[in-house]
């Protein structure tokens, strides 16, 4: 760890995509921070103190003041450290980025989770919904290299983890989520994004994540069957 010269601490969990996207934001802004791993499902007194409302990670603490909710944290990071802006400057383009971030979190992610945790017809429907919503999300690329344009920005780091987790859950849950024929541009973007060194080096170890995902899947689908 590089120490917390900027006075930033990040409470996270190695397998959390929400903590990951905060890590990406901090990395892109070259912010030095101290990382503290929560050993979930046990929650440290610090976590409960800093996020009494949700009791979840990620939480950042900057100059002693805590913040929770990954999108709120990312916008805060963008406002405090102004170089390498994540959100566009223009209010209309900022609005579009925020719109699509909300769409991804509210429409794509729950469908992905249901496709992962359910069985039978429910799973089939959830996977279909996910593929359709990813198709809609693809339109936000508007033929650009990245959602941020020539280089990655806010929406790329908000949505990018889906590519990694979807591939893993496809393997574990046996369902198609990223259909390259249906979403050729988004598929390509997922690949390019996840290969970027700055992005790749923050990803959790893939074999560990696969094992963790398998365990989690077993637990969830057993609950679904009883």
């Amino acid at each position, binding site marked *: 760890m590089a120490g917390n010269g900027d006075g930033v601490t990040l409470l996270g969990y190695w397998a959390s995509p929400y903590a990951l996207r905060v890590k990406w934001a901090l990395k892109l802004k070259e912010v030095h921070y101290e990382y503290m791993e929560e050993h979930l499902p046990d929650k440290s007194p610090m976590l409960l103190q800093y996020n009494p409302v949700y009791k979840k990670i990620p939480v950042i603490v900057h100059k002693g003041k805590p913040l*929770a909710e990954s*999108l709120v944290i990312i916008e*805060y990071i963008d*406002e405090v450290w102004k170089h390498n802006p994540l959100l566009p400057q223009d209010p209309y383009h900022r*609005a*579009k980025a925020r719109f699509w971030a*909300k769409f991804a979190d509210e429409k794509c992610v729950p469908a992905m989770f249901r496709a992962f945790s359910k069985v039978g017809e429910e799973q089939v429907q959830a996977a279909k919904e996910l593929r359709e919503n990813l198709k809609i999300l693809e339109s936000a690329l508007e033929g650009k290299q990245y959602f941020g344009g020539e280089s990655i920005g806010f929406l790329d780091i908000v949505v990018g983890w889906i590519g990694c987790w979807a591939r893993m859950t496809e393997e574990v849950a046996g369902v198609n989520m990223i259909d390259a024929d249906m979403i050729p541009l988004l598929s390509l973007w997922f690949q390019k994004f996840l290969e970027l060194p700055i992005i790749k080096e923050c990803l959790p170890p893939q074999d560990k994540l696969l094992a963790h995902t398998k365990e989690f899947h077993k637990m969830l689908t057993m609950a679904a069957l009883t």
Partner: protein
Amino acid sequence: MGEEVKLFRSWSSPFALRIVWALEIKGIEYEAVFEDLSNKSPLLLQYNPVHKKVPILVHNGRPIAESFVILEYIDETWKQVPLLPEDPYERAMARFWAKFCDDKVLTSIWSAFIKQGKEQEEALVAAAENLKFLEKEMKGKKFFGGERIGYVDIVLGWLANLVSIFEEIVGLKIVDEGKFPLLYSWMQDFAEAPIIRDNCPPRDKMIVKFQALLDAAIASSSSSSK
């Protein structure tokens, strides 16, 4: 200057009302386009193809959907009477609380209204827990925004007029003055603010609408086997 601002709304949508309040507070000239949501106009579908909902703000021909996204756009485009705080940490906390209001407070209070039996009891308990957090956050301020109405007040504003309507229809106390004195007095102060008072849908019409929604929910839950 040629500013053209249109707001697609319905007569009763609490989400669209947030935008009405924001525009009025900032003194922005706009044209309200009332939609019949049972018969959506081609323009609505063109401007919000993803969600097909109101509110939609159209500024000089460019549409923006999702009330939080629109509120931030308005605040960034028209800088008078700022809705969000200046300080990045305070801004982040305002965003955090706004999200909490929609994700937790609104959903639990809606469930407390629309559900029956055990589900309703559980929703009431959840609502009370969520309201406790808001009560604490008031910290003796007049509004969440401080001395004047701000972003969180606008987002939570539905509480000030809808909760008494819900309470009247179901005959249950949701926001008890004894348990939540600060929140209760906030509800009065907010509802009485001139801009809010002058921009609220007629109470009798709202009672009819929500009674009908509740009747439909009861009918469908008793006719379907769970």
